[in-house]
């Protein structure tokens, strides 16, 4: 249970920390700032530097491309010194062992020849790679044999002209996106091209691409590293959460680019719902996407009072249960105008149709339950999508406010904070509905729903204040109200996330399905 200790040690987080979430946010941002500019990034000691704040936060680190490069270089240097082999070879070996340095060193100590062979680094002589002019040389690829033709061979001795070698590498890197496992062009030779040889043979832009691809394999090969999925973000995140932990923790991480995502499944932040629940919920939503169609095909609104009515028998004579309005299912017109000539309700009394009615009622209930949660989930998702607009509007408002009321930049930042809190809370609210869908009914679920209701009411209230025009916003009282509400929203969000995270960690939730 070491992993539990790992992410639960923040359980005792002091309350005053939680009292001002916006402060917390600033703090974490500042911390990332320090991380990024820290020249001495090191896996081991860094992990301990960030303190955990709440039960739903986990430890992680953000790495910029240069950090990732440095980590690789450090590992390569280490292997280069310990095993006394060329750096290029150390790099190839490390990639071959998926950056598991310990296993590489152990295996290499045992059977150096076999390890080199398997990594595509057969028997070698020394000397840096260079282009050569060899007498009586004919390139086996293009069959050119003119005197003075420059050629290259790796340690395996398979010699090809420089231009064929170049074309081969260009194709591998550019078209196939290959880097760590490019073999010698000779038929049947599995020797891997090393970075130094490659740099000799291709132009600078391709060298850069090659190194980018190599870096990518480093992150992809490491279990604790993942790329930030935000478009164009070059950062990677390190987090110690393992796959088996994912049922008890929701590892939300925040990249330096501000994007928040789940380290477990790379989807956007889905706290408080664990990955498995999210997967199921999304699948259900995808599978049931026809549900809405079904409802629109099988239900209609009463033409008088607008209650939703599901047609549960063959009869077209509808009587609204709520307002007793009688109408025709087919044309939605008044029933009294139809008379009884073409209307036949015999089928309605048959056993099969009454069974069908029961079944429909049942599915209607589970459907209604699903839709209850889905509609709220989708509503918050929709609002989350509008976040960008809201944010742009906010920025505009802040500028207007500065000129209209003479407030300083710093004095209008409360709107920014409110916008940020709104976005965050809606994201959380959205997933609380998926979470609640799978909960069995008990006291804890009720507590959860109370928390959910509190958060939702606070969010809607803040959202309303936020929509006010600039004149009203500049009133000092509203400013204070917005600031209070912002901090209250964040507090409510912490509350529900703590409650869910703590009980997730100790298996306290009872589910209506098995996870």
């Amino acid at each position: 249970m070491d992993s539990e200790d790992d992410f639960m040690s923040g359980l005792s987080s002091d309350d005053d920390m939680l009292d001002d979430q916006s402060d917390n946010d600033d703090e974490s941002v500042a911390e990332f700032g320090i991380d990024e500019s820290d020249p001495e990034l090191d896996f081991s000691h860094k992990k301990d530097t960030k303190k955990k704040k709440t039960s739903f936060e986990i430890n992680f680190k953000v790495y910029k491309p240069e950090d990732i490069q440095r980590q690789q270089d450090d590992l390569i240097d280490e292997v280069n010194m310990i095993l006394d082999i060329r750096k290029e070879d150390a790099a190839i070996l490390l990639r071959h062992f998926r950056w598991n340095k310990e296993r590489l060193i152990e295996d290499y100590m045992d059977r150096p020849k076999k390890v080199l062979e398997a990594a595509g680094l057969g028997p070698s002589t020394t000397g840096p790679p260079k282009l050569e002019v060899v007498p009586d040389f004919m390139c086996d690829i293009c069959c050119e044999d003119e005197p003075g033709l420059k050629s290259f061979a790796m340690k395996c001795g398979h010699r090809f002209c420089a231009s064929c070698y170049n074309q081969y590498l260009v194709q591998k890197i550019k078209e196939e996106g290959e880097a760590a496992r490019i073999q010698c062009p000779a038929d049947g030779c599995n020797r891997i091209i090393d970075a130094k040889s490659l740099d000799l043979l291709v132009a600078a832009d391709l060298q850069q691409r090659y190194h980018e691809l190599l870096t990518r394999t480093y992150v992809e090969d490491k279990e604790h590293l993942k790329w930030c999925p935000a478009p164009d973000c070059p950062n990677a995140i390190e987090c110690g959460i393992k796959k088996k932990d994912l049922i008890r923790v929701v590892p939300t991480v925040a990249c330096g680019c501000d994007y928040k995502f789940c380290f477990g499944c790379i989807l956007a932040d889905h706290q408080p719902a664990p990955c498995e629940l999210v997967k199921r919920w999304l699948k259900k939503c995808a599978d049931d996407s026809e549900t809405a169609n079904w409802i629109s095909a099988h239900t209609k609104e009463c033409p008088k009072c607008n209650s939703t009515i599901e047609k549960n028998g063959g009869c077209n004579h509808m009587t609204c249960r709520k307002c007793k309005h009688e109408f025709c299912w087919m044309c939605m017109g008044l029933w009294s105008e139809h008379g009884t000539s073409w209307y036949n309700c015999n089928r309605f009394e048959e056993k099969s149709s009454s069974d069908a009615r029961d079944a429909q009622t049942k599915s209607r209930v589970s459907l209604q339950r699903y839709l209850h949660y889905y509609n709220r989930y989708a509503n918050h998702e929709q609002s989350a999508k509008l976040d960008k607009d809201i944010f742009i509007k906010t920025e505009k408002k802040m500028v207007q406010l500065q000129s209209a009321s003479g407030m300083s930049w710093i004095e209008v930042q409360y709107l920014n904070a409110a916008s940020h809190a709104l976005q965050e809370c809606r994201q959380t609210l959205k997933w609380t509905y998926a979470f609640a869908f799978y909960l069995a009914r008990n006291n804890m679920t009720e507590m959860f729903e109370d928390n959910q209701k509190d958060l939702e009411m606070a969010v809607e209230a803040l959202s309303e204040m936020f929509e006010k025009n600039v004149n009203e916003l500049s009133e000092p009282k509203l400013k204070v109200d917005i600031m209070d509400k912002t901090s209250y929203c964040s507090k409510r969000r912490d509350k529900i996330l703590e409650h869910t995270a703590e009980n997730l960690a100790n298996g306290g939730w009872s589910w209506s399905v098995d996870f």
Partner: protein
Amino acid sequence: MASSQKRITKEYAEVTANPPAGIHVSLVDESNVHNWNVILDGPEGSPYAGGKFTLLLVLPSDYPFKPPKINFKTRIWHPNVTFDEHGSMCIGILKPEAWKPSSKILSVLTATQNLLVEPVPDDAVESSAAEKFKNDRPAFDKEAREYTKKYAK
């Protein structure tokens, strides 16, 4: 591309000067070295014996960096060749990750010949043929022989 021209010409000269047993190559059009006509004798000991199979071998403009394409023009009932007008073949050496610029057309031709002797049912593209090959060898041989007679006499 000049380099590919020289290489192909050389390979063509080698294959025609010293043709492997049961394989005959010619150019579809004398002015274009990229399209080869291949006539393959059904190997002895296989159900294809006695048949003559025509194949079209096309060398892409970036040959030898990209593998050649080869298709059966004569219909053949075989686990690794589609039983249709395309006659597409699944063969390891032509897979992009296995092909090396120094791989030769000759090895493609001999690999094709080998494939007729030893089908690879696990890489099948024609599942009914593969199933019969695995489960009822005599029935497979019989059917393949019949199709050979019908299409490749």
